[in-house]
């Protein structure tokens, strides 16, 4: 796997260059916004990638918390199975279908429910024990980087189109900022807390933070906001050529996120190994807690005399 990294890095760089070429020169110019709309090819894929990473962080955190006891793990597994089955069947019930926003297909809701349940079990299978915690911190950090890009490119796009950098009180913008702040506090907690409970506390914070992701995503469906309607589903009407380039760009950013996440994952394991080695060394070094105590220095031998 380690040998594949440079090859994948080169392929991803080429893919990103291709996505850039498509975004700048192949995608048609927007009739209303002109060329500035091309920010969409970095803004939207970054948002989708951040959401995906935060979702993986949520799944890993739930798995980590549930894995503390076998009975809790079994209960969590059953809850996910039930949620997957209900999520798959419910969208096809006419009463539920009527509640779905315009443009949201029942089949896509059902598929999403199945993917979420499947991802939960896949993460549990391939990331046992401490790997879950390492995965959680990795996805949170890389997710924050992508979310930062969303928060920076959004206002740069808003200024020429809306005439303002930021729309105060707008639910899409505010909830995205709150999401970013939650995950930044998650990283700060992990960085500066030395408590043995840090991993559990961070996992609980991640579960609460993830609740903001659906609010951010669906806010433009359910509330009136300055932000435009979704480009896929939800009544969005994007030119197929633009959509094609958008998906290429997202795939390229997903590959990039995977590589960066992989590096961060390895770094976290290395850091933990170094900490363990340092702790072991401090135990073994002369004068350390478990080092043999000389008679002259030993308070007990002095007391015996």
């Amino acid at each position, binding site marked *: 796997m380690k040998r594949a990294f440079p090859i994948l890095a080169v392929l991803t760089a080429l893919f990103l260059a291709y996505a850039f070429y498509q975004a700048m020169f192949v995608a048609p110019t927007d009739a209303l916004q002109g060329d500035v709309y091309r920010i969409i090819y970095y803004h939207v894929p970054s948002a989708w990638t951040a959401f995906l990473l935060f979702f993986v962080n949520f799944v890993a955190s739930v798995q980590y918390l549930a894995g503390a006891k076998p009975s809790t793990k079994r209960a969590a597994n059953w809850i996910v199975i039930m949620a997957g089955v209900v999520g798959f069947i419910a969208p096809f019930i006419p009463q539920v279908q009527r509640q779905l926003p315009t443009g949201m297909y029942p089949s896509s809701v059902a598929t999403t429910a199945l993917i979420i349940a499947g991802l939960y079990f896949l993460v549990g299978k391939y990331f046992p024990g401490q790997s879950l915690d390492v995965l959680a911190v990795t996805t949170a950090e890389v997710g924050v*980087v992508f979310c930062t890009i969303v928060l920076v490119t959004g206002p740069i796009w808003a200024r020429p189109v809306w005439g303002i950098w930021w729309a105060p009180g707008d639910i899409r913008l505010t909830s995205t900022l709150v999401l970013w702040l939650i995950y930044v506090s998650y990283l700060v907690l992990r960085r500066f807390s030395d408590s043995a409970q840090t991993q559990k506390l961070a996992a609980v914070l991640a579960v609460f933070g993830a609740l903001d992701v659906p609010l951010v995503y669906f806010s433009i469906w359910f509330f009136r906001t300055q932000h435009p309607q979704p480009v896929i589903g939800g009544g969005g009407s994007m030119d197929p050529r633009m959509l094609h380039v958008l998906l290429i760009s997202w795939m390229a950013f997903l590959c990039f996120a995977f590589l*960066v996440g992989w590096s961060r994952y390895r*770094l976290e394991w290395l850091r933990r190994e170094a900490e363990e080695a340092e702790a072991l060394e401090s135990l073994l070094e002369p004068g350390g807690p478990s080092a043999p105590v000389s008679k002259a220095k030993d308070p007990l031998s002095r007391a015996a005399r």
Partner: protein
Amino acid sequence: MNSIKFLYAAYIATWLIHGLYLGSLARRYSRLRQRMKDLRK
């Protein structure tokens, strides 16, 4: 609409953020490698 500079600004900002993060990862890697080397001595 003369807004092409905003497009360039957004693209440059994106790669600047990614570059800074990749730089921080590389720094952390080299610091960790040094720590491991010191431990092995």
